[in-house]
């Protein structure tokens, strides 16, 4: 498979790096509407990255994946989340992010770790190395978002960004079957449905989407 160097490589690098940057924005952001807008942006950059990879690798299925990402992740899911937040009247709920500065620093360390872990790939294929280490960084940052949010919406956003990171990795690894892209997209949709139901239920019961209320309710705590 011919892999273009020079400009092609730089653009792929820029788009993947862009996803990491947007992940940092998500990590920093503490307002729900802004979070939803940034996850849409995240998905949009993912769409561009997928499209660029599709053009580079001349792979039709990646065009399909990019289209899926654009329709579902950049449009449908943010729209549903937006509506949900407005319907539940929690648009003014401010996320309490545990120490934004420390979280950002930790995130930077994670990116470094991701790059070091993927280092053995560098000798074999520099393009794949860049792509995979950025993808791993996005996944790790997404997980970090999930555990630093108290709010269930924040956790959903974290989960979606993990999902985007996986899509990026799948696009970067050449010759990955389309089935995997599809199954990841599908799992994201299922997760959205589950999370949506979960969200409206916990709101109905507790008048809050703070997951701490669940812990208190669990009954096995003293």
């Amino acid at each position, binding site marked *: 498979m011919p892999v273009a160097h020079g400009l092609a490589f730089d653009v792929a690098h820029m788009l993947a790096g862009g996803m990491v940057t947007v992940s940092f924005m998500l990590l920093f952001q503490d307002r729900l509407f802004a979070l939803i807008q940034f996850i849409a942006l995240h998905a949009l950059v993912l769409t561009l990255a997928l499209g660029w990879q599709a053009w580079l690798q001349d792979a039709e299925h990646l065009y399909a994946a990019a289209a899926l990402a654009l329709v579902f992740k950049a449009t449908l899911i943010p729209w549903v989340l937006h509506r949900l937040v407005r319907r539940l009247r929690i648009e003014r709920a401010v996320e309490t992010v545990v120490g934004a500065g420390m979280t950002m620093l930790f995130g930077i360390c*994670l990116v470094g*770790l*991701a790059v*070091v*872990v993927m*280092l*053995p790939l560098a000798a074999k294929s520099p393009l794949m190395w860049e792509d995979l280490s950025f993808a791993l960084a996005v996944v*790790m940052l997404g*997980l*970090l978002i*999930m*555990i630093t949010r*108290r709010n269930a919406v924040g956790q959903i956003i974290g989960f979606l960004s993990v999902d985007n990171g996986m899509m990026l990795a799948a696009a970067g690894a050449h010759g990955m079957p389309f089935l995997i892209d599809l199954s990841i997209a599908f799992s994201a949709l299922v997760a959205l449905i589950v999370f949506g139901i979960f969200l409206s239920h916990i709101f109905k019961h507790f008048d809050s989407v703070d*997951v*701490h209320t*669940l*812990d208190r309710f669990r009954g*096995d*705590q003293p």
Partner: protein
Amino acid sequence: MPLPLVLCLILAMLAAGPLVTPVAGRSWAGGALYGLCLAVSGLLLVAGLLGLAAAGAGTAPQLVRLPLGVPWIGAGFRLDGLSAFFLIVVNFAAAAASLFALGYGRHELAPRRVLPFYPVFLAGMNLVVLANDAYSFLFSWELMSVASWFLVMAHNHDPANRRAGYVYLIMAALSTQMLLVTFGLLSDFGSHLDFEAIRTAHPPVEIARLVVLAAVIGVGAKAGLVPLHVWLPLAHPAAPSHVSALMSGVMTKVAIYGLVRILFDLLGPPEWTWGAGILFIGGVTAVMGVLYALMQHDLKRLLAYHTVENIGIIAIGIGLALAFRANGFGLGAALALTAALFHVLNHSLFKSLLFFGAGAVLTATGKRDLDHLGGLIRGMPITAFCFLMGSAAISALPPLNGFVSEWLALQAILISPELPQWVLKFLVPMVGAGLALSAALAAACFVKAFGIAFLGRARTVAAERARETDRCSQAAMLALVAACVLAGVLPGMVVDALAPVVTLLVGFHMPTQSSEPWLTLVATTPERSSYNGLVLMVFIAVSALVAVYGIHGLASRRRRRAGAWDCGYPETSPATQYTAASFAQPIRRVFASVVFSARESVDMPVPGDLRPARLTLTLRDPVWAVLYRPVVETVDTAAGMVSRARTLSIRQHLSLVYAVLILLLVVLALWQ
């Protein structure tokens, strides 16, 4: 008898377990099963005798490889002199236990929990001594352990039995794990599991040391070496009595077989330090076992602690044999190993006999506590006679068999000053003193057990109404008494029969006894020491007859009955008799105040107060306190921490997983 036929017999016994399961509740099932086990054990006993005779004639061992077990290796079995000797030990006691159970088993409350596992247990023990590769050995070992565990749990309505089963399960698992390590190291991490290959490949000396350590722990946990004996006095009494007899008398011997097989046959030439270590453990086990036994007043538990003591005596013999062999003293090694193997045989005989006696007492009275018995000799004269003979044998009184093997062990100890190592020069006489002490204390303990249970007046109604046990049980006990007397009076025959086994293991054997005049037993040379059981028995018999004749014939033929001297105190309640605790009190004051930190306190009410006076005795088991309690507490603490992690919130769980993920990534980044 060809080995395939022997294996078919064992297979028949193995199959009897599952086959009897559907009908185990029927009244005829016990009789049929025990009858079958009696027949098969009898045939296997014949096979063992023929195998030993063949080994004596110098025939090569029989080998069989079955296409079972590990692919490409199969299951190997071998019948050589050592296996044949242990086949005899296992199956003589198994036949006696089956005969005993023909009568005793009728009183069993839960036959469906006993019958299916009994033949499997017997088959497992037989397979262990025949196995010729590591896989078959461990498989048979586990078969034996698991079947005996089920038998221990037969009466699981009693919480004490459930605890016994729990402790036993843990210790049995430890034992098998350590044996797994042993065979892993011996077979060069599984590259040659066959014993034939292990025998020729001698591991390097560091590996060999590890093998000895793992083998002593693995076997010690099964045989009951201190401090791994803790399960034994709990589990052995919990099983039905004929199974207790087999567990104490035979299963511990099968464990000893494993030790002998590994140390003398599979592993290369020994170092003297191995012998010193085993000798030390054996000495401690012998003395501690008998001290524990003295503190007991539960008849079956007392017998179980005596098993610990006797395993210590056997370990002393094995340790001495290793030390002699490492120094090239072939005859000394042969003497010590003969003593150990002779004691294996003896202990299987008299310990089975004593457990049968305890079982008969249990059936007749429903009591195991010595302080609830008394005066049983009137209701159960034959059981009393058999128990008395067993007690005399285990107390190493001539002319019975227990004396012979302990005498041989002491003879081996007496030639030890010729050993070059100073550690051994000091250690061996100390162990010898311990051996003599344990024999004396064992005699005291059995005077207590027999005296409190069978003599005096009945302490309870149940003891007063006790009736003699059934014919089958009596026959089993009398057969064992006969075996004890024969092995004691004709020890030369046993020693000669053991000669090919000992030659196989250490390359030398004791002087041939059949060439000695008057059935005399000679340890090394006739000038040095000899023993003649027959002369001693004839002397005892003649002098006793002369005394009886002298008293009855010359003085008076009348039998007189008179009241016992009551110290001027006219209270005639049986409770004023000696109890087990009061009998042991002097010895307890001498030894147990140090070893068990025994404390006595008397609560004496003031005159006019109507409450009874109380004597409270507290004992502390040093092994539990020092070795096991810290382990239990550590496990408890760790479990507490894990259970706290269980109640974390979702976010904390996620964080935990995340932290582990990052840790693994860091490890990956550093490692590559």
